[in-house]
């Protein structure tokens, strides 16, 4: 059985699954339940100035009868008194010394506030600090949260203040509400942050109640932009994560991956794209802490199958396989093939190709079942038919190279080859 033990910036945890800074890590009661269930670590919900929350706070996006494909919240940082949080953090660290305890912080925007808060947190025995530069609602109006993360200069300044006093590892959590996470990441790396984490939530409106016309969530007939997360944001998070791994300035800095991770498969994907460990919130809020069992056993079994003995053996392995468009092989060509024995004649491949792609599927009328076959000469190998086919391995993509050699766009242009055959 593969060893899931994780070392992130020297912070040890029995597995790479941490609970992200959010309602599930708001107090000792929740965190104790999480640790009892087996979670490797937590990032305690953000401490800072006292705030006041509203009701309601969450809304979700359901899709085709599946609940919570996307999730949105308008909660602020912890609304519990600072001294209670600090006391409970200290107690929890004592009771579960083998689990990672990282504390998320968002101090008022001055050096002294940050210094004081960091000292108070370090006194609890916590193992690390995460700087919340991402919260997209409520705090931005006060010059905190995402406002910091959106301005590399301000972010750099705050990290410098923090590094002046911090003696435990500091992780800077980035906001996705930017055109690129790289500038802020580079700035905070230059300022000395030990680690990075991403993504925080994305500003969003999840939907409108079609009876009341009030956007969700409804706070007494009004709403505001909330922070979007959950399975729907995973592709965006993966992209942003990989840009850190691709950039020479940020590549050496270990990243904690966050954003729509619901299963061990998602976690493995984040780690393959460079995350040293992962943080999870929405999936836990959807199903409770018991999902940790499958997260651990699924990842461990996959590691066994692939021959990985420890988690750091596969971190970043997929990064070299992400390249620039110009480097892709123009001679690589695939076409679809429909296995008639498996085909259930739903016609979805046909209608999508006919209506929206390349008219590469031939239809033979039948009663009640039509027969569908690929017109090889028309097929551009776009994958659409395979993607919409409801039957496993019914449509397969077969390789028919246009030429033996590897030929990319740069070389294609250099040789002055024709653009198309029309």
């Amino acid at each position, binding site marked *: 059985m593969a060893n899931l033990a994780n070392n992130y910036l020297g912070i040890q945890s029995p597995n790479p699954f941490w609970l992200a800074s959010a309602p599930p890590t708001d107090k000792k009661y929740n965190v104790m339940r999480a640790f009892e269930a087996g979670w490797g670590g937590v990032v305690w919900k953000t401490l800072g100035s006292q705030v006041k929350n509203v009701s309601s706070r969450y809304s979700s996006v359901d899709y*085709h*009868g599946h609940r919570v494909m996307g999730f949105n919240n308008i909660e602020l940082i912890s609304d519990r008194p600072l001294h209670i949080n600090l006391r409970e953090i200290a107690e929890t660290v004592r009771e579960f010394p083998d689990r990672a305890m990282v504390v998320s912080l968002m101090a008022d925007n001055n050096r002294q506030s940050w210094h004081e808060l960091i000292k108070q947190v370090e006194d609890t025995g916590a193992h690390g600090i995460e700087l919340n530069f991402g919260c997209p609602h409520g705090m931005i109006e006060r010059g905190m949260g995402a406002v910091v993360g959106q301005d590399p200069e301000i972010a750099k300044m705050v990290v410098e203040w923090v590094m002046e006093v911090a003696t435990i590892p500091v992780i800077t959590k980035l906001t996705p509400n930017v055109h690129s996470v790289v500038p802020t990441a580079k700035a905070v790396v230059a300022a000395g942050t030990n680690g990075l984490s991403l993504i925080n939530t994305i500003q969003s409106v999840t939907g409108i109640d079609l009876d009341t016309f009030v956007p969700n969530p409804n706070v007494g007939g009004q709403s505001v932009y909330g922070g979007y997360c959950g399975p729907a944001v995973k592709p965006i998070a993966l992209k942003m994560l990989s840009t850190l791994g691709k950039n020479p300035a940020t590549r050496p800095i270990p990243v904690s991956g966050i954003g729509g991770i619901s299963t061990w498969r998602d976690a493995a994907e984040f780690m393959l794209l460079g995350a040293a460990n992962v943080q999870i919130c929405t999936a836990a809020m959807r199903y409770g802490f018991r999902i940790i069992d499958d997260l651990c056993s699924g990842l461990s079994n996959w590691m066994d199958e692939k021959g990985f003995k420890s988690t750091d053996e596969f971190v970043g392995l997929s990064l070299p396989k992400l390249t620039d468009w110009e480097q892709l092989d123009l001679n690589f060509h695939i076409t679809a093939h429909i296995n008639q024995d498996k085909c*259930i*004649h*739903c*016609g*979805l491949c*046909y*209608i999508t190709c006919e209506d929206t792609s390349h008219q590469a599927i031939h*239809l033979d*009328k039948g*009663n*009640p*079942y*039509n027969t569908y076959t690929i017109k090889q000469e028309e097929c551009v190998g776009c994958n659409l038919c395979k993607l919409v086919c*409801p*039957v496993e391995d019914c449509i397969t993509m077969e390789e028919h190279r246009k030429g033996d050699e590897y030929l990319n766009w740069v070389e294609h242009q250099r040789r002055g080859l024709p653009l198309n055959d029309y």
Partner: protein
Amino acid sequence: MIQNNRLALQEYERNFADIHPPFDNQEAVSAEANRCLFCYDAPCTKSCPTSINVPQFIKQIATGNIKGAAKTIFDSNIMGAGCSRVCPVEKLCEGSCVYNLLHEEPIQIARLQRHATETAIEQQWKLYERKAPNNKRVAIVGAGPAGLSCAHALALQGVEVTVFEKEAKGGGLMTYGVAAYKVSPEFCEAEVNWITSIGGIDVRYQQELGKDFSLEDLRRNYDAVFLGIGVGLTRNLGIEGENLEGVVDAIAFIYDLRTQPHQQVPVGNKVAVIGMGMTAIDAATQSKRLGAQEVTILYRRTENEKPCTDVELDIAKLDGCNIVWLAAPKEIIGENGEVKQLVCSKMKLGEVDASGRRSPVDSGETFVLDIDMLIKATGQMPYQHLVQMAAVNEKSGKIQTSAQGATNIAGVFAGGDCVNGGKEVVDAVQAGKVAAQGILEYLALA
């Protein structure tokens, strides 16, 4: 002994409760609707005699557009509500669902259809706007599925329709001829009211063709006529003892069940049912549900040739009916004028006959069943005398029509069981719809 009041009232209620109850929560509706793949040129639609756009209405249910779903169904089949309860979907839409090819449960099309149509009828949604009256008048004989479907399609186009119905209620076979656990009288009435609520349809009950009026009267007073008179006479067995007390025909038996409180319908202790069609199953299962102790269904061919579906046969089996294949009635033995025994010939399969099935051949051996009631469900015969009286072209009592329902008499159309000899409700609805189009063209309205 044949008697009524065999069970407690609650037992009757339980035995005749809805056999395929509707979805009872929105979650289940949504989950099922979202399973639908939304097939292109969908096999389910092709397998529906009325060509309901099934993927379309299921998509509409999935998005919460129940009104749109109901409209999609009714546009093709105005009796879509009744059909969702009585259609043998396992051999129509659900039977061709592509999930069958994946060896998974097909989409519950009938239940979803019921969900949408029932909601529409309950909520009295106004889905159709009649065109302004065009001064054309059409008479329809029979307020069954064919007649009502024809009436609705004509009224929609502004035609004034008068429907003549010999019974006291509309719905035809739906109201009088199917098992009570499939549709209730209240449902049938609501469905008739729903169809006629479009306006321009005047139903005159207890008006019988050949008795209260003639085809000539109708031809004189209306611009066109549609005959949707169905079938209704059970074929005689032509054997000794057929006139004994206790020998009944399935149509009459089910008619009684549908028109009287269940506890008032008498049934025997030991019942034999002859035939293996839907009506035979309905008669047998309901005999059992009325309290008969032993019910035996006899069929002269084997299970491979049976006209009913597996689903129907399973209902009979689950109700505890005995099934005897390769048995044909030979003689009914009575005592004091009442049925006592049924002598049956054991059959074997011979050559393929005109129906394409291997024909039953008498093996010469017999066996005897003790019974006190015999129900004949050996197929229905057309109203040959009515058809001949009306002088329309016919073949063995079945009215001959063009593809659009036109008979040899100008302006006289026909459709449904009286043309096809007796098929599903949904076939009759389609025939009424097609004939309405023929009539509109005949009246130069289309």
